[in-house]
């Protein structure tokens, strides 16, 4: 091991994060190496100097008037509602059904139809105008490598990317997209995406194949990515999303939260976690990337319903406190008998608070499950 590598590990040594053998090796080396000892002494001194830096530095002028002028026409977006993850095909109880329609009388129906026609044509004209004005410069694309293409033309630097246009990369190209003023998307090689919508209330694109990374700083549910197997809903975050040749998706979140949704089913994926979505089945159960291979293999089997009892047994045996993310998501996805096993394991790992009762959980009472999630969330970071 080089001196530089040893020096890079000094922090791990000081914080007790090295295995015994590595620690011993570096400690012995420090006794013999003047340069590494000198680096260690300087690192300690630097920590002391950094601690002396002031916590605050006031700006040279009052920035508030400029900030006020930029926010005064926009109110904060209201908080999003996180729905429960449901089995595919199960109606979400939080979704309200539209009121049944009553047949109108004939003269009224004709008048109403004419009114609707006029209103629709006006709305269509308005939408087209809006679309043109809001999307002309809203998204721009820049090639990072090779020759990414928009339609049939090679994307020039800063080229606008309009609603309906495809951006495609081959094996040797990559591209970056500035998504209005809310963030950036990098499209990796062999990928294709299309802009579906761009406006003040929603930015939506489709990732047809390949990989992308997104860094988005926007209110929840403003940036959405459609894939063949699920809809990725940004809840303020950074993430990587891949779509394979069969249309299955793989999501890995590095900051914030992303929701994967499909036909009333939802998986909430926090930073450090991942989730697979399968075409026709929707999002699987999210899991933390630092969970054991045994846990991840068992979870995959449970999601696919393979040898459910045995797989669930392996899953529960391999679960840690942090894996309550997966266990909580499994509750509404399993039959009652298996749900009871998950309830037991969750309580072994983290006893439920008093306002979260066994019966309410097994009956999938939504407010109770929400309360429990809020309680568990502090262990998911």
């Amino acid at each position: 091991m080089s001196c530089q590598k040893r020096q890079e590990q000094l922090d791990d040594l000081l914080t007790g994060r090295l295995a015994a053998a590595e620690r011993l090796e570096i400690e012995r080396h420090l006794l013999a190496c003047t340069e590494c000892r000198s680096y260690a002494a300087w690192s300690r001194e630097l920590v002391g100097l950094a601690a002396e830096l002031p916590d605050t530095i006031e700006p040279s002028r009052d920035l508030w008037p400029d900030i006020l002028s930029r926010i005064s026409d926009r109110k904060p977006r209201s908080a999003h509602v996180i729905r429960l993850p449901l089995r595919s095909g199960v109606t979400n109880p939080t979704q309200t059904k539209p009121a049944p329609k009553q047949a109108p009388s004939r003269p009224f129906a004709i008048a109403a139809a004419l009114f609707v026609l006029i209103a629709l044509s006006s709305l269509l004209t308005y939408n087209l105008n809006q679309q043109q004005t809001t999307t002309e410069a809203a998204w721009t694309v820049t090639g990072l490598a090779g020759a990414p293409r928009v339609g049939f033309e090679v994307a020039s630097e800063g080229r606008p990317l309009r609603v309906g246009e495809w951006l495609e990369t081959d094996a040797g190209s990559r591209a970056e997209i500035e998504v209005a003023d809310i963030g950036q998307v990098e499209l990796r090689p062999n990928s294709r995406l299309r802009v579906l919508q761009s406006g003040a209330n929603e930015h939506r694109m489709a990732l047809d194949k390949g990989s992308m990374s997104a860094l988005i700083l926007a209110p929840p549910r403003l940036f959405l990515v459609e894939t063949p197997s699920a809809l990725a809903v940004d809840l303020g975050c950074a993430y990587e999303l891949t779509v394979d040749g069969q249309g299955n998706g793989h999501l890995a979140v590095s900051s914030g939260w992303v929701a994967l949704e499909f036909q009333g089913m939802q998986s909430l994926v926090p930073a450090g976690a991942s989730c697979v979505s399968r075409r026709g089945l929707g999002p699987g159960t999210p899991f933390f990337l630092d969970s054991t291979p045994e846990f991840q293999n068992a979870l995959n089997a449970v999601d696919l319903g393979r040898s459910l009892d045995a797989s669930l047994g392996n899953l529960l045996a391999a679960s840690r406190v942090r894996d309550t993310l997966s266990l909580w998501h499994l509750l509404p996805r399993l039959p009652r008998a298996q749900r009871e096993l998950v309830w037991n394991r969750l309580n072994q790992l983290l006893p439920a608070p008093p306002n979260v009762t066994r019966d309410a959980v097994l009956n999938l009472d939504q407010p109770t499950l929400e309360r429990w999630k809020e309680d568990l969330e502090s262990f998911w970071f």
Partner: protein
Amino acid sequence: MVMEPAAARASQGAASDITLLVEQAQAGDETAFEALYRLHVGRINALCRRMLGDARWAEDVVQDAFVRAWRMLGGFRRESSFGSWLYRLTVNVVLLELRSAKRRRARVVTCEDVTEFEENRPAAEPESALDLEKAIAGLPEQARIVFVLHEIEGYQHEEIGQMLGTAVGTSKAQLHRARQLLRERLVR
């Protein structure tokens, strides 16, 4: 500048006041948001200035951070303190800005920026801290960001790797590079 009543209350800094201010701001109360701004702007500006190495640029990004915070307040769910949430949001705003700037190639951190940084410092600060601020501002971008996040802000390499989209080893290597460069600059 005369502070509004909400801003004056906030200067007392009680956590309950901050919670109340956040609730009011979430309901669209700009005066409450101003109070939150005044409570946090010093720390946010320090963070931006150190990460960017440029005082004027930092002040632009501070504005961006508070504008985004206002727009995203509805999504703040109080899992962490408002200060921690705002801090993490600002780190992401700075990283976005740096990525955009790299592509624009329009803004370059120059020696003049460092001089200005020094001139803007309060005179009463210890010289060693002032020297360190100057030296940090002069670090290469990636080394500077990793040094600020790890050594000053206390983030772990795993978190920094996630934020920057790099491996943990890359973060450690950049910190090592930063320390070596600072030693060359400060230890004569």
